Structures are given as structure tokens and as C-alpha cells.
């Protein structure tokens, strides 16, 4: 029966090609605009580590107090990064399963090939647990051992792209790399690990960045050799001392911190620990304001840092508005089209077709328009996503892409939305009084 209705739908749509083309165009453009916006939104709002994000936490300690609050818009939140003193104290106490303080570095590298000029790379100074905590995939070698942190060892993990550039993609574990004029032993090569957003340090990277993450080296070592931080430094008062050491002794925040806590008990005991830490510091006279710590899991943290650009959300809202407008339009056109066939419906009803049959017939017709509009929408979405890469910021443009999920979703949205738009026209069609229609004709 459905096949027959489909056949009827095709005949009916062919009878008024102009109106049919118009509906298909409207559905196609509406779906394509919203899907293009959605593809960008999906790219920037996805969970970067879905299997683990609910077990990763970012602690915040209020080391500035109320005087550090610049405005009232941030809900009285404490600073979103840590100073050196608190970050290293938390590392020392080591209360999570895994944890790492980290800061962004941007050292220079002298390539082993003497013909190449020195290059600049990006990366992070982290603790050894960073790799296990974030399930970082290794191509060759592994993370450095925990005692390398304590020994401030000159070791480094490099990312696949840098390995390609410097060593042609071969196993470079054990080789030496000149970073900022000092030799480091390569202990691991990552398997092209480029999470977006850079969720482990959104404070210093902004989440989405065109900068590469080429090297990871021990935090303790980086501090030892005065490797300057390359991200943000925020101060509530000017450091008393000079230089990088002055920064380390100040209450300026520039270090990101992440901790893995595997169950509720671990979370609540870590919370207690953080509160206890704050209260101890308060008792020692460092703070004179009330406890104001935060311990957010990764999704909540990304939300509070506004990692998804508001432009992306606005575009999505506006594009969804466009889709709704297109559907209202389609509903009007379908209504006109269906009611024009009142006499046909009257005859069918008079010959014994139940309302249900009329329903099915017209919904199949609406669905056919939706399917065709969806196919056009696929093409337009593909064009849209390629077009939008031209106008988006570089760091986001590369993330929006066409994949099977998006294609399937585009078709599904087109069909379902058009059938929704067809519901009321179909209802009206099914209400046609057979007697009246037969009489007037």
C-alpha cells in the first residue's frame, strides 16, 4: 500500500511542478542552513574525552579573595587557574588517582638537521600522570616514569607531527632533542594526539587554538630551567619579586590543574581535602576571607569557561529559526496543495477509504517532499560546510566536517520536519466531507 501511495505522491507532485520545486527548495535550504550551523556547533561543543570526562575534575581555590573579582558577572567564582604555590602543594599532597599541574610553553628547537633554521614549538609542562589520566595514545615509547618528575629529568614526549618533521616519522625514542639550547632525551612519541578543544588547559589556550601541541616535558624540569610560561598570567597584585622566580612566589595565576577522581567517594573526599587545604592556609594567615572553592567535572568546567564561542550558539539559534520559518512555509504550501484535491479525497472517502488511509497517503506525500528536499539539503549542506570554512576563524573552520552521521541526520531532519509540517494539512485533508465534495461536483 505504501508503494502505491508513494506512486500517487509522485504523480501528484508532478502535476504541479512549480509548487513542488518550491517546496523542495524551501526544505532543502532550511535544512542545509540549520545543518551547516549545527555541524559547527557539534564540532565545538562535543565532549573531547567522552569515556572519561565525568571523572576528570578541575579544582579552584580562592587565593585572591573578593578583591580579585573584577566584575560581578562570574558568579563570585575564584580564579580559573592556580598560582605556583598552590599548584605544587596540591601535587605534593597527591590526593587524586592521577593529577597534573601544567602550564603552556613555547620553546625553540634546534633541528638535528643542521641545514634547518631553529623552529618554535608549542606544548605543555606536565607531570608524568598527565598521560595516564588523559589516556594519551603513544605511537612509540611511553610517558616518563614518576621518578623523572622528582629528578627534574631532561626528558620529553613529542607529538606525531613534530616527529614527522624532525625524524621523518621514524621511531625517535632515545634520540636527543635540543630544546631552548638544552638537550632532552625523547622517551615517547604520541600517536597524533590533537584533542579539540584543548580541554586540559582551556585557560591558557582558549580551548580552540591554531597553535600546535608539539612537546610535553616535565613540569619540574621546565621550572628548573626557567622555561617561561606562554599562556595567560593574571594577577590581583603586582609580584614583589622580579623574573620568573618572582612570578612563582606571587599569587598570580598561570597554571592549569586537572585531577582524576573515579567515584563519588573519591570526589567527596577530594572536596574535603581542598576545603581543609584552604582552611589550613587561612589559619596560617594567608587568607582572611571565607571558603570559596570549586571542584567542577570537565563538562561543567568547559561550560563555565565558555569554551563554545557564543557566535556558534547564536548562529545555531538563528539557523533553527530559519528552519522553523521554512517549515511554516512548507506547511502553508502543503495545505494549499492538499485542499486543492478535496474532490479527489471526497471520491476516495466515498468509495470507502477510512480516514487513516487518507492520513497515510498524504503523509507519504509530505515525506516524499521531505526526502527530496533532504537530498537537495545534503548537497547544500556539503556546499555550506565548505563555504563556512572560508569565513570562520581558522582554529574552528578545520573542525566542521561532513561525515556519515551528519548526512544521515540531515536526511532524517528533512523528512521528519516536512512530515511534521504536513501533519496539519493532512488532518485537514482527512476532514474533507465526502458528501459535500460529491455534491458540488
Amino acid at each position: 500500500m505504501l508503494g502505491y501511495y508513494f506512486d500517487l505522491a509522485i504523480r501528484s507532485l508532478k502535476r504541479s511542478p512549480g509548487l513542488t520545486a518550491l517546496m523542495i527548495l524551501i526544505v532543502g535550504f532550511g535544512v542545509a542552513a540549520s545543518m551547516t550551523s549545527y555541524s559547527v556547533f557539534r564540532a565545538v561543543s562535543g565532549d573531547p574525552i567522552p569515556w572519561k570526562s565525568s571523572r576528570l575534575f578541575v579544582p579552584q581555590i580562592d587565593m585572591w579573595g573578593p578583591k580579585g573579582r573584577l566584575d560581578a558577572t562570574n558568579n563570585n567564582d575564584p580564579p580559573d587557574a592556580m598560582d605556583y604555590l598552590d599548584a605544587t602543594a596540591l601535587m605534593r599532597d597527591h590526593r587524586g588517582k592521577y593529577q597534573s599541574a601544567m602550564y603552556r610553553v613555547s620553546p625553540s628547537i634546534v633541528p638535528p638537521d643542521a641545514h634547518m633554521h631553529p623552529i618554535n614549538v608549542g606544548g605543555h609542562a606536565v607531570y608524568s600522570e598527565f598521560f595516564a589520566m588523559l589516556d594519551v595514545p603513544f605511537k612509540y615509547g611511553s610517558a616518563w616514569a614518576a621518578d623523572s618528575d622528582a629528578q627534574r629529568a631532561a626528558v620529553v614526549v613529542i607529538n606525531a607531527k613534530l616527529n614527522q618533521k624532525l625524524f621523518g616519522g621514524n621511531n625517535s625514542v632515545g634520540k636527543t632533542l635540543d630544546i631552548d639550547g638544552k638537550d632532552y632525551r625523547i622517551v615517547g612519541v604520541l600517536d597524533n594526539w590533537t584533542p579539540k578543544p584543548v580541554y586540559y588547559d582551556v585557560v591558557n589556550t582558549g580551548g580552540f587554538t591554531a597553535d600546535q601541541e608539539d612537546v610535553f616535558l616535565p613540569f619540574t624540569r621546565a621550572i628548573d630551567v626557567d622555561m617561561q610560561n606562554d599562556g595567560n598570567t593574571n594577577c590581583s597584585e603586582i609580584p614583589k619579586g622580579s623574573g620568573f622566580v618572582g612570578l612563582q612566589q606571587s599569587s598570580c595565576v598561570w597554571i592549569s590543574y586537572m585531577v582524576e577522581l573515579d567515584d563519588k567517594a573519591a570526589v567527596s573526599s577530594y572536596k574535603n581535602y581542598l576545603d581543609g587545604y584552604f582552611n589550613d592556609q587561612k589559619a596560617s594567615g594567608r587568607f582572611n576571607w571565607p571558603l570559596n572553592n570549586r571542584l567542577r567535572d570537565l563538562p561543567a568546567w568547559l561550560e563555565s569557561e565558555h569554551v563554545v564561542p557564543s557566535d556558534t550558539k547564536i548562529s545555531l539559534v538563528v539557523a533553527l529559526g530559519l528552519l522553523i520559518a521554512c517549515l511554516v512555509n512548507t506547511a502553508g504550501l502543503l495545505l494549499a496543495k492538499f485542499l486543492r484535491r478535496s474532490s479527489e479525497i471526497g471520491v476516495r472517502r466515498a468509495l470507502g477509504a477510512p480516514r487513516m488511509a487518507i492520513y497515510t497517503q498524504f503523509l507519504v506525500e509530505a515525506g516524499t517532499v521531505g526526502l527530496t528536499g533532504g537530498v537537495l539539503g545534503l548537497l547544500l549542506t556539503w556546499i555550506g560546510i565548505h563555504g563556512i570554512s572560508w569565513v570562520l576563524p581558522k582554529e574552528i573552520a578545520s573542525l566542521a566536517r561532513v561525515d556519515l552521521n551528519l548526512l544521515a541526520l540531515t536526511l532524517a531532519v528533512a523528512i521528519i520536519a516536512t512530515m511534521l509540517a504536513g501533519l496539519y494539512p493532512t488532518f485537514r485533508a482527512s476532514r474533507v466531507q465526502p458528501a459535500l465534495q460529491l455534491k458540488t461536483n
Partner: protein
Amino acid sequence: MTLHPMIAALRKHKAGVVLIALQIALTLAIVCNAVFIIYARVQNVQRPTGLDESNLFMITQQWVGAPNGDDPASIQKLDAMMNEDISALRSMPDVESVTPINSLPLFPSSWNGAMSLKPGAELRAGNARTTYYFGDENLMKTLGLHLIAGRNFTAADVTNKGFRDPSEANLVIITKPLADKLFPNSDAVGKVVYLDGSSTPSTVIGEVERLQVPSVSSWASSFVWNSTIEPVRLNSNFSRYAVRTKPGRLDDVMRAVPSKLYAVNPMRVLDDDSVKSFKDIRAEAYRADIGMAVLMGVICLILLAVTAAGIVGLTSFWVGQRHRQIGVRRALGARKIDILHYFQLENLMIAGGGAVVGVALAVGLNRLLMSKFEMESMPAYYVLVGLAVVVTLGQIAVFVPARRASNVPPVVATRAA
């Protein structure tokens, strides 16, 4: 023509009327807000930075294995390296002027603080927030700033310090908006200010007309013209230079820079991003704004086209449906123009009704965007212009089917349906 028969006719197909009106309402709401977004972005992009932007470029470079800049000896070493670079750049043909600098307007790196009229104030609670630019006596000339009061720095005013040295300069030049904020009733030149809660005074020696802060993000929008220039060469393991070339020589000079600097000292990093024209800095800074404006423009165009097409489609259908009635009216003496006006007036009523709802929706959408995304409040005239636009659009769209209706011959009345 009385409206009564028209309203009676509209009531016969309520659903169609409601759908067109709703469509027009949604169009109005979305187009108003989209155009408002476009306008805000375009305005952002068009504001002048205060620089003479042509023939200007910036170099960012990093020394390899340079001293850390934490002790006096290494600071002097870094300063000597910086001076070597500067004199090499100045010696290049077609270079007009060079200054060391920490950042430029629209460049994503900034140094921000607060300025106070009293010593030792809380850093974050100063009298005015400001951004800092550090350069030498050639900064004004290189950037093409307009000095409107006081004097420029001289070579003797310029000092150097480590990148993380918290001490403050004795002399500063500030922008007029900052001066007006700090000293609303008097001249700023010669006055004493305190930078970042410091207890040592700095004297304002000059005032420039306009100099934008580096950041174009919303967090800097409250102090976007509050800039302070300090006569300081900042010494670190990296350095930046702003260079002004002779007119039309920008590309040649930019191409020649890497080999010139490598010749001074090969142990440095100069990559693809190191030498950047101000034009490129501007393009990158505003890429997101321009992209958003383009996107909103495309959405507006699609929406207006869809709405117009929908009106044409539905009115055409109504014309077809009322073919016989039109013939009867014509046979009873209605002129062509009466039929045309009938459909135009009908559309005006529907579009007008939709637009009224649309005004409410437009304001509602604006409020929603304001509450969620730091949008400004949309001025009322946007909605009024939007209203005029959708009503006009309706009239244009209805014209073709309405004319077809007016061409229905009276003889149709005599034929069987």
C-alpha cells in the same frame, strides 16, 4: 472598497492565512536580529585603530638559548641583542622607522592593568583600566599616532627592563579617552599617575588622539581606547618590532627581513608567522566578526527569498481557487485594477497582522540573545524598518499572482466550473 467581504473570504481559509502571517512574523523577527548582528560586527571592524595602517608590519622572533632575563647581566645581554636587531632593521633600504614593541592593536597578545590617581591602590580597583604598549622614541612615528598634547619621548627617556620586572616607567603617554577618564576637568599632561597599584609615581608627558587596545574580545570592550605607552624596551627571550616602510615598499622589505636578521644572529626562530603585515593582523583579528556577518547575511537572504516564494506560491493557489469568483466579479463590473487591489490589500492585511506579531517576536528574540550571549539591546527603528521591509516584500511577492488574477476574463463566470 470595503474590507468586510475580504475578511469574510480570509475566514474561509484561516489556516493558510495564519501560516503566511506566522511566516512573515518569523521572517521579521529573524531578519531584524540578524541585521542588527551584522551592523554591530561591521561597526566593530570599521573602527579605526588610531594607527596609520598602511606600510606597517610587525616581526615576532625568538632567540635560541638566550639568557633567561632574570638577572641584570642577562637583561643587558638581551638588550644588546635587541639593539643589534633594531639597528640592522633601521639600516635596511626603504625602512622609514622601527620600534621595539610588545604588541599592536588587534594582535592577540596584551598586557593590561589599571591606572590610579593614588599610590598603592588595589590593582584591580584602579581609577581606569588600561592596556600597556612598550616601545622607544620611534614608536609614535612608526605607528603613525597623532600626538595632541604634550611631547613625545626622547631617546634619553627610553630605558630597558626584564620582561617580568614589576617596576614602572617614570614617564608615560596616554590616550585622550584615558586622560579624559582620569582627569575629566583638566589637562592630563604633567599630572602624576600610579600604574598597577604601584607606589612610585609616573608622569604623563603626552596625549595621543587614539590608540586601540590589542584585544578585540568582549572582555576588553570596557576599555578599548584606554592605552598607555611606556618608553621601555622589554627584554625577554623573544622580541617584537614594528616597522614602517616607505610607501609601496612593504612587501619587499618584509621579504628581506628574515635573511637580514639571520645575518645578525642565526640562532633564532623566524617562522611563517613571524613577519606579518598589519593588514594580515587586522584580517585575522576580525575574521570571526566578518564571518558572522556573512553568515547572518546569507541566512537573511535565504529567509527573505523563502518568504517571498511562499507568498507567491500560496497566493497563486488562492487565485486559482477563486478563478470563478474573480470572473463573476469582473462580469458584475469590477475593473482589472479592483481585482489587483483586492489581492494586494488582502496581502497587506495578512502581512500587517504577521508583522505585528513579528515585532513582538523580534524583541523577544533580541531579549533571549541578550540574556544568553552578551548582545546589545536592539534599537526600535530596526524593528520598524524590518516591518516596512517585510510588508514591502509581501507586496512585491503578491504582485505577480495578483496581476494574473486581474487578467481573468469576465467570461469565466459563464462557464461551468
